[in-house]
């Protein structure tokens, strides 16, 4: 057990707990950007810095284990100024097309900018202008929106062991992409979608074909059927504010029929068939 204080509040935590985790236990919110609870810290963004009494350095809360007797300060004008400057720098390297972005209103960078009350741009914009990769039927990669948090790489390489995505180059011109000049469709990508679901911004986003579906549904010459993956029956509830785990099967079928699909299939049907065999 380690005893320390955060903003004067005593904390008792297990050895190896990070400053960020310890702070959350005592309801102290440290802003983060690259951090994701599923993943080991990449320590990339520098937003979560805090002060430790007795040192004039600032430490990253996401990856620094709390030590016995540490006296941590998470907010003061200097810390906030540094965080804000870092955020301004990140924003200067990010396009301003929130309204047209798939991640609008669910973007972690956007939320952070709002939380810091960013109203104007302090630094000139530098956007790399690397072309989008829309070679697959699953996602669009937009390198301009990447904040180099490293989550997609961590997921793709370490957790999924797919190694489709990689960090290429160095410094300001570093970027994430498949190796050897390949497009995503030529890479080992299996379209698992983990990169997209962990991306904090719109740099990797599911290919949106809503308009095409609407068009097909309205075409009287088409007989439209729909098939859903098993996990969607439960997962979709969260998007509508239901408690996690709510079974939505009935509602989902009803909605799909009302949208105009003539028949609704569930992928689990094939599983049932296999069992009957």
């Amino acid at each position, binding site marked *: 057990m380690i005893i320390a204080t955060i903003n004067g509040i005593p904390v008792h935590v297990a050895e190896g707990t990070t400053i960020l985790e310890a702070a959350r236990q005592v309801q102290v919110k440290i802003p983060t950007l690259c951090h994701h609870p599923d993943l080991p*810290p*990449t*320590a*990339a*963004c*520098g*937003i979560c*810095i805090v002060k430790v009494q007795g040192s004039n*350095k*600032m430490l*990253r809360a996401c*990856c*620094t*284990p709390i030590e016995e007797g540490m006296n941590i300060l998470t907010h003061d004008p200097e810390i906030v*100024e*540094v*965080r804000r*400057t*870092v955020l301004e*720098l*990140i924003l*200067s*390297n990010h396009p301003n097309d929130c309204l047209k972005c798939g991640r609008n209103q669910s973007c972690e960078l956007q939320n952070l900018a709002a939380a810091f009350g960013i109203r104007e741009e*302090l*630094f*000139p914009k*530098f956007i790399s202008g690397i072309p989008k990769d829309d070679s697959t039927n699953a996602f669009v990669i937009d390198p301009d929106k990447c*904040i*180099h948090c*490293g989550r997609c790489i961590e997921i793709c390489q370490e957790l999924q062991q797919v190694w489709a995505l990689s*960090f290429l*180059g*160095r*410094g*300001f*011109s*570093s970027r994430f992409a498949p190796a050897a000049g390949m497009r995503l469709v030529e890479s080992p990508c299996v379209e698992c979608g983990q990169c997209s679901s962990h991306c904090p911004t719109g740099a990797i986003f599911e290919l949106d074909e809503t308009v095409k579906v609407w068009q097909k549904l309205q075409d009287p010459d088409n007989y439209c059927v729909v098939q859903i993956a098993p996990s969607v029956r439960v997962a979709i509830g969260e998007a509508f504010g239901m408690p996690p785990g709510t079974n939505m099967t009935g509602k989902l079928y009803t909605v799909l029929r009302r949208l105009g699909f003539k028949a609704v299939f569930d992928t689990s049907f094939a599983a049932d068939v296999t069992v009957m065999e």
Partner: protein
Amino acid sequence: MITKTVLIKDTTPGSTSGTKEFFDVFTAALRESKLADEIRLVRAADIGVYNHGIVLKILPDNITYANVQHHDIKRIIGVTLKHGNPIKDLLYQPRAYQLRLVLKNCGRIDPESIDDYIAHDGYRALSAALQAGPDTVIREITASGLRGRGGGGFPTGLKWSMTRSTPGNEKYMICNADEGDPGAYMDRSVLEGDPHAVIEGMLIAGFAIGASQGYFYIRAEYPLAIERVQKAIDQAHAYGLVGERIFGSDFSMDLEIRLGAGAFVCGEETALIASIEGKRGTPSPRPPYPSVKGLWGKPTCINNVETLANVPSIIRNGSAWFSRIGTENSKGTKVFAVTGKVRNSGLIEVPMGTTLRDIVFEIGGGTASGKRFKAVQTGGPSGGVIPEHLLDTPVDYDNLQKLGSIMGSGGMIVMDEDDCMVDIAKFYLKFCVDESCGKCAPCRIGGYQMLNLLENISRGNATLEDLERLRLIAKAMQKASLCGLGQTAANPVLSTLRYFEDEYREHILNRRCPSKKCTALLQFIIDRSRCKKCGLCARSCPEKAITGDKEHGYTIDTARCINCGMCFETCKFGAVERN
């Protein structure tokens, strides 16, 4: 029969013929005194003394005379050369500013011969260390006060004992030879000139921490150093000094070379480890420190070349001997690469606490051009500039830090009045932007934005608010960058701002570069009185902005001029002026 040799050098700045004239007069005088067959006169190229008029050195008496006048010749012949007595009012005591400890063997022994090294006390320290035991070795190094010479200045003994006390039977010793500061090459010189000293230091360190494997991480751009270190390892291996049961003891350690591949950030310990493991050299957060979890997750100790080269002599001569050299908190000597606009550019080694003035003027001989000294830059891209009024500062870790610079690995770049501080800041920042690994946002974007602001200043497109922006980004980089590279990348900007803010303001407010370096702010015109109408400038102009002919002379059309400065460089008569 020749009995004495007299070296002659006129050390007056700018003097070209003084030595020759004095030599001729002296020769005539010797002939007159019938001593021409006994005294050998030699014009020297450099006598190691500067700005002291005509200097003579008489051998083998080892008497040096300074500010000698022609009328002194008679006295010198009569008193010194005939009778061997010194003349008090001419005597000059040249100070030995340098103290060669790390460089002791460099240039003296054959780096490709292990026997030559052994003949110069080589491998005795290793033998003594093996007998004394690891604890004694660490105690000696700790007591000596040796600190890391790679830049950080971390106490070496403490580093060793931390690695030793971490439990584990597999530990690694790494020699950091990824010297990357532009304008610094101390490590290269030591590896090329005395590789066995570093190997011996490695083995002693490995023995102290309990390592069985050591790696030299050397820049790939140093082929000769790599070749000599490999040769030295092979020779030591053949003598049983590397490998199994060294000197018949229980201690076994192997050494291997691994190459860097052009990434400055790999000088950072965690990045260096990643690179040896065959990965991208991006730094990782610390803790865990390498002493606990380093190469392949095992306890690892990383020391710089120069640090390790100090180790054998400390073990041989004892910590008390070493700690007598240097200052309170910085013991021993430091090797510096003194380069730039200095007369004698090269490698020097001085005791800690030597003043910058002694280094630049007494050893370096002042500026090469004779122009006014402006500043000296220490610590490379992580360091800062030190202006003339602070030159009397004794050099050590703490003093340089107080001045906003760092000791760094030992680059020392001398600048004269032709060097623009905005341009210098831009140069170092460009380096850091190129070398940033790109992992963390403050360094990756902050450096880029700062560079852009500096570009604008040097083009006259900036406002005073941009200075505030520079300071704001600098602070964010210092506080929020993950590794040392990003944390210190803004230092050259901050220190030039600290001592030369006027120069920045001059660029911004008056769109003028006082050193005439920022070409975008210059105006080029042809001075008709000096123009020889040769037309070379017009031919060199890439924009065809120079018009005229050989009869009427030439003029520069300022509207078309792009300020490239080609005409200025081309003109042989100094007729192109820049203002």
